[in-house]
């Protein structure tokens, strides 16, 4: 379980003094309590307002079209694709935590995986809205699927855009199933602890008749491993395919082979930043310091630092290749990034994504909730700017100076972006209130002198 080579015992993954019962009580009561915290209502009210704004924006786009956005020649992608890539990237941390860390038997995943997976699903939902609206005729979105049709046409299977459809829809499906299957034993716990018959029935229907029998646990373990095996390659493949959307194009700054690994590292970087952004307030408001310990925060800080360095290497290689290629257009792309009209975005990106995360080298900073929150917000912004730089700077000045132009996002660009952030927080708040936000049975496995195998207890 430990990744240290010294003989110093790592800090425990669960606060002292917990028993199996106290773990269950603490987490299940977050859902089954009658007293909803005021902060939760506040979060729902504010994010709900933005969901309303999102609804209005989407309806406007339905009826009036994508001309409401700032996209036009030469920048046809704009916020829609920037935000799509940003959201998809954020989701990756959830899959990494739930699948790869499960296969690697990392004990520190147990208390954060449930919420991280939920984050993945909501992030993918936000991401999915953008290409859907960007098509301009979202009601014909089923044309993207290879269904029998009366047009005598199939999708262009040589285009990375259709690979994207498969990659993202597979990702959404597998993440949802993995999340749900992992929740079944805890839903049964909620069913058993609920008082109200209708609440019992609701959780009873969701937990698919789970009785905690040995055969159930046996199947559960097999199913989780299989799903983890299915999800693990998705951590790498989904953002690789997203990067192909760019890399397969011939635009300077896009047409590079570093894109797949650089995008994947960036996705995990952004994802862990978002996990921290969500977990730090959750931890504080629900007093979960015993479950999301300092060791968890330390580890997440380290993952951010490591992936951030890979991303920094990506930027360095982009610059080096632009020079080394000898291509006038690639070199221009670089000088245009550094000194062009969007130079502030590029320099801010370097600041947010490379400079500020270096704070994470310090153990003291990794132990400070405020420092972690500051760095994670910086990375959230930095990774958004990275997609802005990739999409806008490359498109706005390409090969033909006569077709150069500027991209100015409109009010509808911003309202859709803020709207999806609102939707994300709204969905996450609902999740915290109505579903077990921490895997009860897995955390019980961390209790000292607990059952021999995680979660195999029959205690209730």
């Amino acid at each position, binding site marked *: 379980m430990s990744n240290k080579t010294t003989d110093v015992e790592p800090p425990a993954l669960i606060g002292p003094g917990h028993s199996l019962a106290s773990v269950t009580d603490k987490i299940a009561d977050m859902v089954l309590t009658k007293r909803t915290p005021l902060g939760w209502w506040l979060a729902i009210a504010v994010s709900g307002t933005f969901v309303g704004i999102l609804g209005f924006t989407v309806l406007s786009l339905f009826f009036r079209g994508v001309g409401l956005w700032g996209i036009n020649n030469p920048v046809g992608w704009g916020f829609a694709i920037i935000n799509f890539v940003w959201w998809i990237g954020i989701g990756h941390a959830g899959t990494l935590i739930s699948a790869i860390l499960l296969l690697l038997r990392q004990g520190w995943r147990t208390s954060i995986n449930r919420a991280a997976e939920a984050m993945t699903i909501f992030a993918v939902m936000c991401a999915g809205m953008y290409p859907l609206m960007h098509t301009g005729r979202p009601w014909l979105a*089923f044309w993207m699927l290879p269904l029998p*049709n009366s047009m*005598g046409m199939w999708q262009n299977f040589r285009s990375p855009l259709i690979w994207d459809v498969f990659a993202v829809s597979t990702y959404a499906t597998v993440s949802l199933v993995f999340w749900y299957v992992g929740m079944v034993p805890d839903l049964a716990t909620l069913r*058993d602890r609920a008082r109200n018959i209708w609440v019992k*029935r609701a959780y009873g229907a969701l937990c698919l008749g789970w009785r905690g029998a040995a055969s159930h646990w046996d199947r559960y373990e097999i199913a989780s491993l299989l799903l983890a095996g299915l999800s693990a390659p998705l951590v790498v493949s989904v953002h690789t395919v997203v990067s192909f959307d760019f890399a397969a194009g011939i635009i300077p700054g896009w047409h590079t082979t570093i894109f797949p690994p650089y995008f994947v590292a960036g996705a995990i970087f952004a994802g862990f930043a978002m996990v921290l952004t969500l977990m730090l307030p959750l931890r504080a408001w629900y007093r979960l310091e015993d479950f999301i310990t300092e060791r968890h925060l330390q580890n997440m800080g380290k993952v951010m630092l490591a992936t951030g360095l890979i991303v920094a290497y990506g930027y360095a290689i982009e610059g080096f290749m632009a020079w080394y290629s000898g291509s006038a257009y690639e070199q221009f792309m670089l000088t245009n990034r550094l000194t062009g009209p969007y130079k502030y975005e590029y320099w801010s990106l370097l600041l947010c994504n490379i400079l500020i995360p270096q704070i994470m080298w310090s153990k003291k900073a990794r132990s400070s909730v405020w420092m972690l929150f500051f760095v994670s917000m910086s990375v959230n912004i930095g990774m958004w700017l990275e997609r802005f730089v990739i999409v806008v700077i490359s498109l706005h000045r390409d090969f033909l100076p006569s077709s150069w132009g500027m991209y100015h996002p409109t009010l509808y660009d911003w309202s859709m972006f803020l709207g999806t952030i609102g939707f994300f927080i709204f969905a996450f708040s609902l999740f915290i209130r109505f579903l077990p936000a921490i895997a009860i049975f897995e955390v019980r496995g961390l209790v000292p002198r607990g059952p021999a195998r995680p979660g195999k207890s029959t205690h209730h």
Partner: protein
Amino acid sequence: MAQIFSPSTNTLSKASIVAGALLAGTGAFALTTANRWPWINNVAVAMEQEVPFSHKHHVAGLGVDCRFCHTAVEESANAGIPPVKTCMGCHSIVWKDAPLLEPIRESYRTDVPIQWNRVHDLPDFVFFNHSIHLKKGIGCESCHGRVDEMPLMWKVNSLNMEWCLACHRNPQDFVRPRDQVTTMGWDPERPEKSGSNLPPMSQAEIGPKLVQEYQIQSLTNCSTCHR
């Protein structure tokens, strides 16, 4: 603890998996293939008109050429719907008092055109041009069917994109000699029946020859029809 579900729930939940899959499958199939159903695309549904004009009577009975009325078909995108003065050319002499033709005479007197109900209506994003199809040896019949057997006009083909592409991908299966484009019931194996002096050939023989002679390209770019 009391049971919260009855025993039938087990069966119900299993059945709901099957039902859900079936529903989703049928839904997707219906959504994407509805254009093939006659009650959606109106194939073989005779269109009512203010004046029940019979192509059967005029073409098969009287032997009027398509181009006598649809005069623009060889030169323009639209075949052209004849003005009532074309009708009156004959009907001021024959059946000149028939009550059935009163709307024609009234239109002629008042200069208000007859509102014919359109039978073949392509979506506005499709740019179809009659003249090029005729020039390349595609007969009226290939799209409109045996008009000489229709008392009232109906669609024979769905005009779905898959139907357009069936010919655009394999024009040799449908092309005919240019002088036979308006012929109804053209059969390359019995050309003498249509007054042609070509030797009898199968479509597999004559098709590729005509494709070469008329320099027919298999145009399947999006922008061929969607501009």
